[in-house]
């Protein structure tokens, strides 16, 4: 029952966002418009809480997010309404391999489309697949979405979103560290949040330290040069792991 009722709640909240019913405020981003509800948006975002009462925004009951990306704002709003987000699956270019894991014992490895929920990063099926969950974000491009969403979560002070993004980002990095999206996502992480914000920075550093081969990529090289923090973080991890003794 509880599952049922919370699903119903989630559905109707989602419906509020798509239909715009009862809306008392409007968010514009480029060509996209969302008719939102202060009661939902403001309590969970310090930014909107202040914006709706300020100057022109208060008068027009509308805010134009001039420099954000429509798709990411959409994800943020999805989170604000239902507490989770799903990156849309349109870009299939990176979907290069089929599922290799299923219920049969023939394939004793978790394929990249799935994640090991035990967080042990075991890939030998020793858990019997009990900790194996299908990853909803099975596209490498999602790495970039996550990083961008993290930026907005920081900028607009969206409650709880950062840690959710971080979880998803960790899983995505496990699967897609070896794709062309990883360096892009890594740069976004370092460029769009204050230095003190370690949330995704740590994930990027530890992913590289797990896969030092990445350093050979020219994109990574330029990242290392630009962001001293990244290089230093990596060095520190190596030192602590005793890799250079």
């Amino acid at each position, binding site marked *: 029952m509880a599952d049922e009722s919370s699903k119903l709640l989630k559905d109707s909240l989602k419906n509020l966002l798509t239909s715009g019913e009862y809306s008392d405020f409007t968010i514009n981003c480029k060509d996209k418009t969302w008719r939102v509800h202060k009661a939902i948006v403001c309590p969970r975002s*310090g*930014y909107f809480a*202040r*914006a709706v*009462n*300020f*100057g*022109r*925004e*208060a*008068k027009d009951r509308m*805010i*134009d*997010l*001039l*420099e954000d*990306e*429509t*798709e990411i704002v*959409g*994800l943020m709003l*999805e989170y604000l309404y239902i507490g989770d987000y799903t990156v*849309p699956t*349109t*870009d299939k270019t990176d979907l290069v391999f089929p599922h290799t894991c299923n219920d049969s014992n023939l394939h004793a490895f978790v394929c990249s489309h799935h994640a090991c929920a035990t967080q042990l990063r075991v890939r030998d099926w020793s858990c019997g697949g009990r900790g194996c969950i299908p990853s909803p974000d099975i596209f490498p*491009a999602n790495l*970039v*979405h996550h990083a*961008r969403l993290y930026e907005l979560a920081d*900028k607009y*002070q969206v409650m709880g979103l950062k840690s959710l993004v971080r979880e998803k980002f960790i899983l995505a990095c496990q699967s897609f560290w070896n794709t062309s999206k990883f360096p*892009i996502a890594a*740069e*976004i992480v*370092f*460029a*769009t*949040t*204050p*230095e*003190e914000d370690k949330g995704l920075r740590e994930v990027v550093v530890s992913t590289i330290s797990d896969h030092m081969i990445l350093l050979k990529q020219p994109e990574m090289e330029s990242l290392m040069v*630009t*962001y001293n923090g990244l290089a230093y973080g990596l060095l520190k991890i190596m030192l602590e792991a005793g890799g250079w003794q």
Partner: protein
Amino acid sequence: MIAGRGRQRIRPPRRGLHGDEIDFENTWSTIASAFREIHTKNASRLSYEELYRHAYKVVLKKKGEELYKRVCDFEHEWLSSEVRSAIQALFSPNLSAGTQSLGGTTANERRVAGEKFFKGLKQAWGDHQICMSMLADVLMYMDRVYCHDHRRPSIYTAAMVLFRDDILHAPTSDVDGKEVLRLLNHVILDQIQMERDGDVIDKHLIKSCVHMLDSLYQDEDEAEDQRLYNTSFEAAYLETSREFYRQEADFLLRDSDAGAYCRHTRRRLYEEEERCRSTLLDVTQPKIQQVVEDELIKNRIHELVEMESGVRFMIDNDRLDELNLIYDLNSRVDDKKAELMRAIQKRIVELGTDINNAAIAASQAPVSAPMPLEAGDKVKAQMPEKSLNQQTVAAIRWVEDVLQLKDKFDKIWEVSFQQDQPLQTALTRSFADFINSPAFPRSSEYISLFIDENMKKGIKGKTEMEVDAVLEKAIILLRYVQDKDLFERYYKKHLCRRLLMNKSISNDVEKAMISKMKIELGNNFTLKLESMFKDMTISEELTSGFKKHVEGLGDKDPKRIELAINVLTSMTWPLETMGSGDDAEGSRPRCIYPTAIERIKRGFEKYYNEKHSGRQLTWLGNMGSADIKAVFPKVPQKDGSFKERRHDLNVSTYGMVILLLFNDLPADQHLTFEEIQAQTNIPKTDLIRNLQSLAVAPKTRILIKDPMSKDVKSTDRFFFNEGFIGRFVKIKVGVVSSGNKVESDRERRETEKKNDDSRGFCIEAAVVRIMKQRKELSHQALIIETLNQLVGQFKPEVNMIKKKIESLIEREYLERVEGVKIDSYRYLA
């Protein structure tokens, strides 16, 4: 799904986002001009998105510190130019007039100027708060990232500090140099003073300035007790209030009465409480209350209580509500209410002593005045009769007065002192003080007499409830009496007379009284009293038993004498106090009874010995009475009639013995005093008194005395008065001093001596009891234990205890323990 058209629009990050320098100066000028709009209340066209984005980017580009500094500079600039000049414009000479005490400005002018000042400050402060909260909204990202990471106060807090420094700490003028803050404090205090003086002020307006002071801090730490309200205003407020109330107390003590003072103080307390609620802050309430209580009550309570219209006046005039006020005020500053208690106690003792003195005066006045010195003992018999009665009246009056006093203070205690427990104890102590005052040794006797009077007359015709109330009153007084043993002595004596002379109206009431005393004083106390009642019951049975016995003898003698007898256990009854008190020479002389009487006396003795062998009966002729049928012969009367007259005479037993002598005497013969004494062996004083009532008292002159005078001398001669005229058939010949009256001083000394003697026994018994149990005890401990043991009976003098211990040592009940530091005793078995 949200996105669904073609390729995603996710681009690689713009190269060098971090690198390309945003134009800080440009961005800042955008922000600064927006801030100016905000300050000039023109914010409605500003875009939050834009301003936030600018600030966000600046902080993201690590220019947070620069931005923070610029904002502070901007605000400092704004406050010290725009706002400060607006505030300066509010200053007027009227404003600070109070401080320089210039004449010429009325309170009203000052009030108006003050309110203008308040309004200006309130406006500036309110604007500042609103603007700063808008700025803080815009600069939220800076607050969160820069200020948080660099441990800087939020921009809002920083702006509040700026307001304090640039506005409140600014000098009011270049010349005077006084701070705005001090001026503000001064004006608030001035207005509060106006309100105290009865003006109406704008409390709401002041409260908003107070709130401003409350939200600013003395230093950067923002510690709770460092608010400007506390550090700057409150201290000054408490100080000026203290001074004000000190002066007010002076004035009030000089110019009004205590009741008005109390009411005024109460109103001030209420006003200050109300002021904290409406004008200032609640945190000040306990502090200002302390100040008012200190200045108007604590430091003044003594003077207040002692005022001419103080506690004494209130007590005397039954100002119950004013006493309640004093009580209320005193208990605010002193849990013990020491001042009030002291005054009350003093007044009780004063009033009590007045009552005591009145009783002494009433009892002494008539005795001392008319009595010639040489008259001595003999005159006493007639003259003091009257005065003794007056003394009895005085005694009863004393009891009534004390009870009235008690009622008065009970009411005060109940109504005015909220039934305060310590005060009740104090009241009780004071009553005990004057009742047991060494200057007034008669309380025990007076209380007993009061009961006696009520038992004989007072309770006649009263309902059970009323009777009970009377008894209860006596018990109340009894509670105060320290020397219960003395009371017991008097009570026994008075009870004895009531029982033997049949003076009691109701036996039930007597018994009710006894059982009340039993509850109050314990079993021991009433044991003897109860056995007196038992003796009376047994005696009734004896009398009727003897009557039957005599009838059983058969010889119907018409002249037979009926005997009603009371057999009293000698240890129980205070017989010594019943006697004439004169026969100090030793054993009571045996009265010689006429033969008829002697016969029946023997008859009873025989009858009694058959029932109880081994008991000795002693006849107390001085205590009985007799009914005699007397026949007076036919002699010419003044009215010319000539007939025999019969009277029933009720006389004392001695009177009967005397009269029977004349039965055998020829009509014209006489007996001298000495002859009568010799033939009857009646003690001299008893004889004198009986002869007085038979021969001197005008209405019962059955004998004629020669020479006729009031005194009875041993040479006097007595004749039977054949011509006696009585108006009634039944005549009662009263014997002098047969009722219960106040003792004469000599009697009292005797009573006290007897009491002391029996106290001696009590003390010895107590000491022996204690030592038997403890075997060895120090002197001090023994004294204390002895006092404790005897507290229910009396309070022995320590000297007496010492003497008794000495005497016990002599008699080898105890010995001194040798060679110890503290004096100690050992029990010798």
